[in-house]
């Protein structure tokens, strides 16, 4: 049983560009959350998707948007990239048939903005 998978592993973009990150949840999970982790800090919540809708959002600007597909996979889009967007982006899945309150994290996508 595959856990949470994310793609790509690493990404380098130029300031002002747009980026799309992808996440496939663990089998049986129906809820996906996205986090941003800057170097040396704990993960910060961006938003959460359930039933293809954004259910809650952290303190992030509208440049950060997302989507959840019928198969529960999700995308994180960031527009007009800033140097400060350089971070590890983590996807976490939970809920569904698992019946567990635990959130499972993927390995993350390392985004570097130059």
């Amino acid at each position, binding site marked *: 049983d595959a856990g949470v998978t994310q793609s790509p592993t690493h990404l380098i973009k130029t300031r002002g560009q747009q980026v799309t990150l992808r996440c496939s949840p663990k089998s049986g999970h129906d809820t996906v959350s996205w986090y941003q982790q800057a170097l040396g800090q704990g993960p910060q919540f961006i938003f959460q998707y359930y039933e293809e809708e954004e259910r809650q959002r952290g303190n992030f600007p509208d440049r950060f948007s997302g989507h959840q597909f019928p198969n529960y996979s999700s995308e994180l889009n960031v527009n007009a990239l800033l140097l400060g967007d350089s971070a590890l982006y983590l996807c976490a899945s939970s809920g569904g048939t698992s019946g567990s309150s635990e959130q499972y*994290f993927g390995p*993350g996508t390392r985004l570097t903005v130059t």
Partner: protein
Amino acid sequence: LAKTTQPISMDSYEGQEVNITCSHNNIATNDYITWYQQFPSQGPRFIIQGYKTKVTNEVASLFIPADRKSSTLSLPRVSLSDTAVYYCLVGVPFSSGSARQLTFGSGTQLTVLP
């Protein structure tokens, strides 16, 4: 969201028991305490969760006093591979569509020495 306070760093030697204490003075009645472990460039991994008294699983124990204003993660007989950042989180357990976000602090960097 309850705020947590943990030591920034701790050192230990292989084979020793390590106890990491977390303070959460404004924990709410419905809040649970959850600990995550994170290795560099990887997503956090769930270790243990509890509400009161003591919880034990195959990797750790969690001690919660009666007033629940603090908790202690106990790692028995640590090895070099236990070197990681450990996060203490407080909140209502997740369920599908509950829109619960995880709020991470800066965590405790545990370094296990040979």
